[in-house]
């Protein structure tokens, strides 16, 4: 597999140098691999950080900036960052009002953030709250799994909660909102191809040309099941149905049709065109829409659908100004 890299071992460090060169609105701590706002928040406001394995860009580093995150910690590709990174970021961004950690529900992420919170608690001073996102309806039997994975809704949580923190809401209110957004959101993903982790150099799984994988996560882990490739309208139904079967989505909603990294925007818009009428027919009133690559899986072809049942507060916070590499409006 051909990659635009120097060496597999230097991918993260090299990419961070590129982000630093490209975007003067962020500052990079190269030692801890943390992306910060160049212009930190004023004192008294809640700070919001996230982090995770790399390979999901623009999540999370591309969402650092006004109206979203205060910092993002970068792990190795598809590997959670380490507790010392999150601890350093937590201390750095705290403005005296506490720090919210946004964690995707993956075993490694949860354990590393947990250790970071323990370490931060041992050092007095910083109040830390945590929200673990778990919106992936592809994971059915959660008693016998590590629980539903945190996927697309993480983008929406970071936007909405980031806006609330920017507005000056306190840590309890921001944390409660984060939980409500997570609980109101559901996602379902699919892949046309595997992805190739630079260090492995070959596709993570083998998916024949005439097959697709339904119910994938965001790390190239295989999905719920595999079946023959179908037309876009059939794939759309396979994304919409499990979401609507899981929870009532009638009323206003924010909908994200997300690319996994290797599918052109042309196809993502085509898919959105198939998904939207199915949702509307089921009583979902699409209030806001996002189509594009926001939480990716390296070079995987495919897409995911996220639907968030949104109240007026969430919609207003969604519309609030945001200025990051990945999302930018109103400012």
């Amino acid at each position, binding site marked *: 597999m051909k990659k635009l890299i120097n060496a597999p071992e230097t991918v993260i460090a090299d990419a961070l140098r590129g982000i630093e060169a490209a975007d003067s609105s962020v500052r990079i701590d190269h030692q801890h691999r943390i992306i910060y706002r160049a212009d930190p928040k004023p004192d008294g406001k809640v700070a919001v950080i996230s982090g995770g394995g790399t390979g999901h860009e623009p999540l999370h580093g591309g969402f650092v900036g006004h109206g979203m995150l205060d910092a993002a910690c970068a792990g190795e*590709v*598809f590997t*959670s960052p*380490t507790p010392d990174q999150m601890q350093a970021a937590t201390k750095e961004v705290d403005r005296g009002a506490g720090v919210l950690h946004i964690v995707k529900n993956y075993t*490694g992420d949860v354990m590393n953030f947990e*250790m970071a919170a323990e370490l931060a608690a041992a050092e007095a001073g910083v109040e830390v709250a945590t929200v673990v996102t778990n919106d992936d309806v592809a994971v059915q039997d959660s008693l016998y799994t590590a629980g539903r994975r945190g996927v697309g809704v993480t983008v929406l949580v970071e936007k909405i909660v980031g806006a609330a923190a920017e507005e000056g809401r306190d840590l309890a209110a921001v944390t409660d909102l984060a939980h409500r957004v997570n609980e109101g959101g559901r996602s379902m993903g699919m892949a046309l191809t595997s992805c190739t982790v630079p260090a*492995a150099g070959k596709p993570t799984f083998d998916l024949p040309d005439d097959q697709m994988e339904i119910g994938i996560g965001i790390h190239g882990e295989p999905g719920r099941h595999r079946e023959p490739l179908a037309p876009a309208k059939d794939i759309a139904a396979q994304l919409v149905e499990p979401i609507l079967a899981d929870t009532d989505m009638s009323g206003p909603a924010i909908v994200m049709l997300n690319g996994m990294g290797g599918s052109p925007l042309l196809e993502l818009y085509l898919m959105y065109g198939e998904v939207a009428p199915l949702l509307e027919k089921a009583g979902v009133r699409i209030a806001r829409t996002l189509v594009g690559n926001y939480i990716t899986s390296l070079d995987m072809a495919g897409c995911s659908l996220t639907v968030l049942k949104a109240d007026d507060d969430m919609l207003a916070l969604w519309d609030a100004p945001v200025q990051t590499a990945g999302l930018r409006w109103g400012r």
Partner: protein
Amino acid sequence: MADQLTLDIAKDWLARFGTAVQEHKAHLTELDSAIGDADHGSNMARGMTAVNDAVAGSAPAALDEMFKSVGMTLVSSVGGASGPLYGTFFLRFGVAAGETDSIDAAGLLATLQAGLGGITDRGKAEAGDKTMVDAMAPALDAFAASLADGGGLADAARAAATAAAEGRDATAPLVARKGRASYLGERSVGHVDPGAASTAMLFEALAASVT
């Protein structure tokens, strides 16, 4: 044949484990590709390289100091699930070993059990969940049984290595219930758990070091 785990033997154990992980890096990653996310080999190799560099560059006076540093190095260099799990194992191992420069076979069993306790506290895995616990728990049982039968440190460590390898192989027919492999459900059947595979290497390295 050693009857004590000394600082030098502990160093040798870690070096052997590092070498094994490095040699089988591709194999571990391949196991992880089948049911996980294809990074266990590279993560463990990176972590153990950091550990052995740190051990080589320091002169710890006691086992607790040494293994706490090993644990913190793994926690801060591995990431993923393996970092906190192996890291917590060695941190608890170090605390249990205490401020001494050697422990006997019974003492080693107690420290290994403390380490395993750290893994189950952190990861909440139970026997049969298709995780590293399925290699480590039988290894410690075999270690204890060998001591009860009058075996020495080398016998117990060899019995533990054998049991860990059997435990590793026995993960193949299991359905994963923890970690990313759990998302595969029945599709995880037929694959050896990568964490159980690296754990078997840890016990093979221990057996080789005390022989």
